[in-house]
Structure formats: structure tokens, C-alpha cells
């Protein structure tokens, strides 16, 4: 399985890439896309549970990134900025799909968690498949924290919730995940 760039991602490399993009270097955009396309796609796949939807949303995300990176104020914050855009793109689509829902929380609760894929081979793949069985909010928080290496403060800013909420979602996600592995009831 492909090693996720986020696991070994170096913020210096991200900042350098962002600055080269802001300068207008075409090769930097190619490198940025090569580095972050798959993590963004996986993140959106995890949020939507569909390959097709993830493909469409990834395209929308990159469109906004290409049009917005020139005005990115803090190139060092490339990673949370990128996933923030991906999340907004996904939420925009969910809002359109569930336009009658009263608020975003209701929308998120309505989204069924995809079934786990028991055939994956590596530990990471198994972990990802377990992650997919979690409720969307916990799944998203856990993925951003562990797989994308965002800090609690960055996730709180990205999700527009207090840091305490991020911590409680992480706690609940870990519990659910632990139950998944041990077979215990939640």
C-alpha cells in the first residue's frame, strides 16, 4: 500500500512548496499535487464513502487551491489550509444534498458510515478500514489528528469547534476504535 505523505510530511517542505507555488513555479504545483492528491482524495473518500464523490470533490478542492494559494497568508500552514478547503468543499456538497436539514450537525448524523473492508492487508489499511466504521465526526477528527498530523488547535480551527470538543471527539473515537479491535460493545 502507498505510504501516506502526511505521516512523514515535513512542514518545511510544505512551506517551501507553498512559497514556490506563490512565486508561480509550474513544477511546484506538479509537486504539490503529487504530494497531496492522494491524502486529500482519501480524506474526502472517508468523508463521503464514495469513490466518485471523492473524485469530484477532490477536483473542486484543487480548483480552489489553485485559485487561492496566491493569497495564502501563512505558507507554513499549507496542510491545515488544504484540508480546510477540502472539508468546506465536502460540507458544501452535503449541505446541497441535505438542504432541508436544520443544521450541519444533523446532516453529519444522517450520513451512514461505510462498511469496513476486511480484505485489506497492511496494518495501516486495517486501521483505515476500522476508521471507516466510525461516525463521520469522530472519523474525521481522528484522521486529521493521526493520519494528517494536524495539531488539536489546527483541527479546532479547521472544524470551527473549541479545542475541548476536538479532544472529546478524539477520546470517543479512540474508544470506538479500541472496541472495534477488541470486539467489545461500545
Amino acid at each position, binding site marked *: 500500500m502507498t505510504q501516506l505523505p502526511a505521516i512523514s510530511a515535513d512542514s518545511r517542505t510544505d512551506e517551501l512548496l507553498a512559497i514556490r507555488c506563490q512565486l508561480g513555479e509550474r513544477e511546484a504545483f506538479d509537486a504539490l499535487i503529487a504530494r497531496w492528491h492522494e491524502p486529500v482524495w482519501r480524506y474526502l473518500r472517508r468523508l463521503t464513502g464514495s469513490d466518485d464523490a471523492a473524485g469530484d470533490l477532490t*477536483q473542486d478542492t484543487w480548483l480552489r487551491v489553485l485559485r487561492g494559494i496566491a493569497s495564502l497568508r501563512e505558507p507554513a500552514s499549507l496542510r491545515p489550509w488544504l484540508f480546510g478547503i477540502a472539508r468546506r468543499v465536502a460540507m458544501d456538497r452535503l449541505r446541497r444534498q441535505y438542504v432541508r436539514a436544520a443544521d450541519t450537525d444533523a446532516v453529519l448524523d444522517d450520513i451512514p458510515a461505510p462498511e469496513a473492508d476486511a480484505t485489506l492487508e497492511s496494518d495501516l489499511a486495517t486501521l483505515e478500514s476500522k476508521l471507516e466504521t466510525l461516525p463521520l465526526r469522530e472519523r474525521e477528527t481522528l484522521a486529521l489528528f493521526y493520519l494528517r498530523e494536524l495539531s488539536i488547535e489546527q483541527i479546532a480551527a479547521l472544524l470551527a469547534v473549541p479545542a475541548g470538543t476536538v479532544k472529546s471527539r478524539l477520546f470517543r473515537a479512540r474508544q470506538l476504535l479500541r472496541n472495534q479491535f477488541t470486539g467489545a460493545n461500545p
Partner: protein
Amino acid sequence: MTPQVKSLQDIRRLAGAELSLKARLGYVALLLMSTGMTVVIASLWLTETFLPLRAQLAFGVICLIGVSWATLAVWALSRRRPLFARDRVIAGGMAVTFTSVFVAGALTGAVIANNPAAYGALASGAVMLAIAIRVFVGARRRFTELAGRRAALEAG
């Protein structure tokens, strides 16, 4: 082909179209030309005292068209084809060159023909040139800042 790979190919095609320098500088040229044309027509319109109504209407329509094109260019450059630091330096250079030629033409018209419209165009051109110089200097400064930060990061 996996969904990720297909998606990656789509994104690369998208980036190729989105990052076209030609399209960006095309909008810069459109902005400069439409602004210049509007200024010239507006100067003629406002300084010619005995224009028939039809001519005044025609000038008004041309000015409206010029403003519309300029608005479209500004919208495209801010929303659809934002300029990167290197593009801004090029665009700033284009703006300084264009407005300098414009001012030189208006100055020639004012001195040789003593035409009131040329004075109006000269005054407007001077303002445009000042703005262009400011944009160019700002673009150079921003480019230097980013290039410096890039060099520092690459040096480790």
C-alpha cells in the same frame, strides 16, 4: 486504473488549464487596453463642447463597454486567474510600459495640438502611471520577500 489515479490525471489536466500564464496576462492586457480606451473616449466626450447627441450617446456606450471589459478583467484576475508573484511582476511591467506610452501620446497631443481632450487624457494617464508604478514596486517587493524565504528554506 484506480479511482485515485484517474482523479490525479483529472487534476493534472485541470492544473494545466488553470495555470496558463497566457490566459492571465491576456486578462492583464484586456484590463490595460479597456482602461486606456475608456480614458481616451471619456476625455473626448467630456472636453468636446459641441458634440451632437448621437455622438455623445455613442461615446457613452463605448465608455460603458470599456468599463465592462475592465470589470470583467478585474473579476477574472481576482477570482478565476489570480496572479502569482512572478506574474505580478510581469503584469506590473506591462502596466508601467503601457501607461508610459499612453502618457507620452497624451503629452504629445497636448503639446503639439493643444487639444483639451489630450490634457484630460494626460491627467488620467498620469494617475494610471502612478498606480502602475506602485503596483510594479509592490510586486517586486513581494517577489523578493518570497524568493528570500525560499532561499532560506532551501539553505536549511
